[in-house]
């Protein structure tokens, strides 16, 4: 018998840097992404889009397109009307035009679709469709949306005084949402020794995964069954939505998310292209593929942020925060199609009191329509958490500057202390666990913070220094793992997630989950959880996700919910298997269950470890002769509804050098310490953090979706939209502490979004810190060379 530590290593369970099982196909070009799928008789669908942001459609002439050999159909809103599919309900309680009905409300809106033998002919068909528009004034500035004379974007609901989230005050008003205690916050401000206020725009950005969105819809008219391969982060929800829209029973609908080339929130929504491909397949009785190009992707499917925030802090003279107020104008685009799972229209924004013990707080968000694309998503974060973390982490720096308190010190003075957990914030969130001081201290020591500040002081004293040096700190707390079904649902379906485990007679196993991998390593890490729980080596466990006909119903992967919810379901399902295995072992060993103890991969008789049954032996027995009263087989499923969110946190520090001549910002150093509770696979965690930091770097330093006054999106290709290459990307240093979640079965919290959420304010804080001695408190993102130079110029320090 192997020694326990050898057996444990063989399992490759929780805590092991196990290499990824799924790599083999990707490194050999054998991945199976949606555009790789080819079915006999498959057609291609392409979309005719509006060049204008706001216009009435006067006429659509499809005759020339239909005359092109190989074009099978051209569909417009008129063709969808008899099916009542020209509009579709959104996940946010609004409706969205599938194909523009009467008018277009954003540039690149879907106006018609062309279905053809292949993508070349479809593209020719798109060009041949003639659309006549009458241009209307465009509304681009969200802050002007509620002006009395603002153009009315949504004529279809202009006279409706009630929206899905309460009263509407203006035709362009979507909702007003409030959180916290306004009176208490106002009282804190009235009594405050000092207050600070800062306006800030979190600009509209796009998640931009390398694979765009697309699907292959295949309706079998003989069987009446619809199979659709789709780039979806939530295939089960799509099945339910497709059922509602099509009238088909869910049992006749199969949604398959095959390999997905990155999601980052872009693939949560249900888009008109999917609906049109499905309709076209049903109408034509042939498989129909739709794949976005990059311009369509950036212009129409999903955006993130676009929050115009005004934040205020009240504090004592020694820097203790006594109150917080935030007001937001949220630009939701032309339809409220936000893909988010909470019951609140601003999602989890009220986590904005951050890592700090703030006694009184109030937040208000007003959502408005503009002539921009709909479909806001959480770009590598839980919904609105990135905005929330940004506002508090910027504000605390503004306060530190006003009071001349060091930016690390002011955080220490306001942290929720370790002994305060579980902690209830002024907004009502119950933080599960944390140890913020320890993380910050570790970072400050690792980078020799005092030396950095001394270097900065010396550089500031030298008027000839060609650079400005900035040090940014961010000590963030996230809220992830949507979520408790009391707080979160999609179309009424609670935000549980699920796992089914089936142990085969030979002791190997297959497990299926309701989540879906997009590169996070699920096939590797879920197996590690089961390995530790059941003593089955990871390599003998197959993980399957993404096929609604085989996987248990789940709500998908976004908002860092796979480990907090799916991982918990996995552990709990494994524990059900474990409980049955114990019964079988007791029967085999002819002892009571209480006489057994579990060791790594076997039950052994207490005090007599030689008498033992391994999981492999138990699995065989389960199929051979189940103990009396037990069914044969060894399997279990679990639908896990988390009792709370999880609250990962971290301490980040950035050092930047700004070129006073050009405004270019060089990231000299970035140190990221994360605490995601129990760590399942350190290698994968580090990879997730590298990726999240890089996406955060992109957002902070270069990404934006700028619009001109007519609502034209300027920069909708990768020429302008900033995706950093290996040359621009900084070197990342990572570190960690471990503070397990007390309510999660294995103590894990989720990690992939922390580096995105936490790094963005860290970069902004570093850039602003470089200007702190010049009286500057804030620079708007992205911190492109041009924008930074404008501040250098305004501050009189440009060379």
């Amino acid at each position, binding site marked *: 018998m192997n020694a326990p530590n050898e057996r444990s290593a063989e399992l490759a369970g929780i805590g092991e840097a196990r290499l990824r099982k799924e790599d083999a196909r990707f490194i050999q070009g054998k991945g199976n992404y949606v555009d790789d799928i080819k079915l006999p008789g498959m057609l291609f669908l392409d979309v005719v889009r509006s060049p204008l942001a706001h216009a009435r459609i006067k006429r659509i002439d499809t005759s020339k397109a239909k005359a092109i050999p190989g074009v099978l159909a051209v569909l417009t809103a008129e063709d969808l009307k008899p099916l009542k599919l020209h509009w579709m309900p959104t996940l946010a309680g609004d409706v969205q035009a599938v194909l523009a009905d009467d008018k277009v409300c954003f540039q690149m809106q879907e106006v018609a679709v062309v279905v053809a033998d292949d*993508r*070349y002919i479809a*593209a*020719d068909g798109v*060009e041949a469709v003639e659309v006549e528009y009458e241009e209307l004034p465009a509304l681009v500035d969200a802050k002007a949306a509620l002006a009395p004379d603002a153009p009315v974007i949504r004529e279809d609901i202009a006279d409706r005084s009630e929206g899905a989230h309460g009263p509407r005050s203006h035709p362009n008003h979507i909702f007003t949402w409030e959180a916290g205690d306004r009176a208490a916050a106002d009282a804190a401000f009235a009594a405050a020794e000092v207050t600070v206020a800062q306006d800030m725009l979190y600009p509209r950005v796009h998640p931009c995964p390398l694979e765009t969105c697309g699907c292959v819809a295949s309706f079998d008219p003989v069987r009446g069954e619809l199979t659709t391969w789709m780039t979806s982060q939530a295939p089960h929800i799509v099945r339910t939505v497709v059922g509602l829209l099509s009238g088909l029973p869910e049992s006749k609908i199969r949604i398959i998310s095959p390999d997905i080339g990155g999601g980052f929130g872009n693939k949560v929504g249900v888009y008109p292209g999917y609906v049109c491909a499905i309709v076209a397949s049903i109408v034509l009785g042939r498989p129909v593929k739709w794949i976005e*190009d*990059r*311009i369509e992707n950036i212009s129409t499917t999903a955006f993130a942020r676009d929050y115009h925030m005004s934040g205020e802090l009240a504090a004592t003279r020694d820097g203790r925060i006594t109150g917080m107020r935030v007001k937001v104008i949220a630009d939701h685009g032309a339809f409220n199609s936000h893909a988010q799972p909470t019951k609140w229209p601003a999602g989890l924004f009220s986590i904005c009191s951050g890592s700090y013990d703030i006694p009184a707080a109030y937040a208000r968000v007003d959502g408005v329509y503009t002539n921009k694309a709909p479909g806001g998503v959480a770009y590598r974060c839980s919904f609105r958490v990135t905005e929330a973390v940004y506002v508090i982490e910027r504000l605390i720096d503004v306060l530190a500057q006003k009071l001349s308190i060091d930016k690390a010190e002011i955080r220490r003075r306001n942290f929720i202390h370790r002994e305060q957990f579980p902690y209830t914030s002024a907004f009502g969130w119950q933080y599960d666990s944390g140890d913020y001081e320890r993380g910050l201290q570790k970072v400050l020591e690792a980078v020799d913070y005092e030396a950095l500040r001394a270097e900065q002081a010396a550089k500031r004293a030298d008027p000839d220094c060609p650079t400005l040096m900035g040090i940014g700190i961010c000590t963030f707390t996230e809220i992830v793992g949507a979520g408790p079904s009391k707080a979160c649902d999609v179309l009424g379906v609670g935000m549980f997630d699920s796992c089914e485990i089936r142990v085969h007679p030979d002791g190997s196993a297959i497990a299926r989950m309701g989540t879906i991998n997009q590169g996070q390593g699920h096939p590797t890490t879920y197996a590690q959880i089961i390995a530790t729980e059941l003593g089955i080596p990871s390599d003998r466990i197959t993980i399957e996700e993404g096929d609604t006909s085989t996987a248990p119903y789940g709500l998908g992967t976004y908002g860092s919910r796979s480990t907090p919810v799916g991982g918990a379901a996995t552990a709990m399902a494994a524990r059900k298997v474990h409980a049955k295995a114990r019964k079988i072992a007791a029967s085999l060993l002819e002892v009571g269950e209480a006489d057994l103890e579990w060791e790594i991969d076997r039950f052994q008789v207490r005090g007599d470890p030689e008498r033992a049954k391994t999981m492999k032996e138990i699995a065989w027995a389960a199929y051979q002769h189940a103990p009396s009263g037990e069914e044969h087989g060894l399997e279990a499923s679990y639908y896990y509804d988390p009792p709370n969110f999880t609250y990962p946190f971290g301490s980040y520090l950035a050092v930047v050098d700004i070129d006073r*001549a*050009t*405004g*270019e910002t060089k990231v000299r150093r970035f140190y990221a310490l994360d605490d995601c509770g129990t760590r399942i696979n350190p290698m994968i965690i580090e990879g997730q953090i590298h990726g999240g930091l890089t996406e955060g770097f992109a957002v902070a330093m*270069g990404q934006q979706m*700028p619009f001109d006054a007519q609502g034209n999106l*300027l*920069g909708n290709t990768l*020429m*302008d939209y*900033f995706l*950093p*290459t290996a*040359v*621009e990307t900084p070197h990342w240093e990572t570190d960690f502490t471990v503070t397990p979640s007390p309510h999660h079965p294995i103590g894990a919290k989720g990690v992939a979004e922390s580096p995105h959420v936490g790094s963005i304010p860290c970069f902004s804080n570093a850039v602003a810190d470089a200007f702190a001695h010049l009286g500057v408190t804030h620079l708007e993102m992205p911190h*492109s*060379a*041009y924008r930074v*130079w*404008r501040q250098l*110029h305004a501050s009189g320090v*440009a*060379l």
Partner: protein
Amino acid sequence: MIPAGFDYHAPDSVAEALRLLDELDDAKLLAGGHSLLPMMKLRFAQPAHLVDLGRIPGLSGIREEGDVVVIGAMTVENELIRSEIIRRRVPLLAEAAALIADPQVRNRGTIGGDIAHGDPGNDHPALAIALDAGFVLEGPGGRRPVKAEDFFLGTFMTELADNEILVEIRVPGLAPHTGQAYEKLKRKTGDWATAGAAVVITIEQGKVGAVRIGLTNLAPSALRAEAAEQALLGQPLSETTIEDAATRAAAICDPAEDLRGDRDYKLAMARQMVKRAIRKAAARCP
């Protein structure tokens, strides 16, 4: 993004290519394709015919003709970076080519395409101006030379006639004690310049004996900053003369506002790039 239909032609001689240009309606020359094909995929360009220069022997390659370095128009950027002749004789081109696009694109993108396209964002025009290069255009009537500084007429407008092909770039020999440098400010890999400056400078006995300055993406076409050159000529190089040159260079710029920056920023960056390039080129004078 799919191009509209066209007919593809792959002539094996310049004469055949010229004949095709003459005979075909609405034909475009295809060099590396990394400007033209994206434009066609966006359907901004829909030529009926493409005449590919890629199969004409002798249109690419680098050779020395006495003092002159002759670069075939179809020579790709990576060949400029690798070429021993270029590194020895015109290191400016190797330095600048490494700042153009990315490794894959540099395997397709050609010096001739970069020049003939007439895009003010392209780098070779200013480089050629700074090097006082000449271009050889071949048409039905034979070959004719055009100096680089006379070639660029405006955005996408050049001296090249519809029935001509740019076949060679000729870089004259440089005086001893000459240094070369290209400074290019860009947002990221693969981007065009926010501002770029190419400087070729000769310093003899402590004074500027000769200097040529070319500017990238700071006007509807590449510019030669003659007034700036004049400010330096015959002077010892000092911070004052460099500042003066930079100011004069910026004075002739007329940049378009775009996502890279507004006019003020680009003018300021023109100054910065000119100053940096002068200093760097001067430091390289043997």
